[in-house]
């Protein structure tokens, strides 16, 4: 039962990544693209958690934590660049 549900969840999260990637490519404005990148790393975290459950290995959480931190820093840096024209003043 768990493997079937995991397959469905993989399919759903992959479809979510596809939709987010479409928004990243065709976003009309710059904040749309930044929002799509932000959503993309959250979806990548979900995919990594699912992979960790699928392979029965707790190794992938370190990668998930790293993606969470780096993604947040990237989003903040890009927004700061749009807001101020400079990142570190």
């Amino acid at each position, binding site marked *: *039962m*768990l493997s079937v549900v995991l397959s469905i*969840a993989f399919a759903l999260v992959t479809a*979510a990544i596809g939709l987010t990637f479409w928004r990243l490519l065709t976003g009309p404005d710059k904040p749309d693209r*930044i*929002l799509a990148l932000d*959503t993309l790393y*959250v979806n990548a975290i979900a995919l990594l958690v699912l992979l960790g459950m699928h392979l029965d290995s707790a190794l992938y959480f370190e990668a998930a934590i790293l993606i*969470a931190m780096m993604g947040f820093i990237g989003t903040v840096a890009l927004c700061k660049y749009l807001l101020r024209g400079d990142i570190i003043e």
Partner: protein
Amino acid sequence: MLEITISVLILIGAIFTFIGSLGLARMPDFYTRLHGPTKATTIGVGSLLIASMIHFSTQDDGLSFHEVLVTLFLFITAPVSAHLLSKAALHLRIRSLSEPPPLVDAVDRDVLTNGEPLPRRSRAPRPNAHQSR
């Protein structure tokens, strides 16, 4: 029983993640698009992480606390990044679908007098106005 719980949590998380990205792709406006992925972050990835925590805690080597770190970090950073994104969009003056709110004076006049112009202040009844005529 445990497997059913984990499966239901995984399904809820995956469906919410998908709905968040669907909202990001389908909504007509940046400010409405901002709404979807924040829900995907909190409910979707949150319940996936709870499912993973139950899954790894019921295996041989005790409780697993890696997921709590990811959950805490995501729950703290999601509102901050959404706030910064909306600030950047407002700074760039990105069009919103909704009309801008009317001016405060117009709102007050419509509420007070049902759309008619305000009466002049000199027409207001003074306490001894009829005596002086």
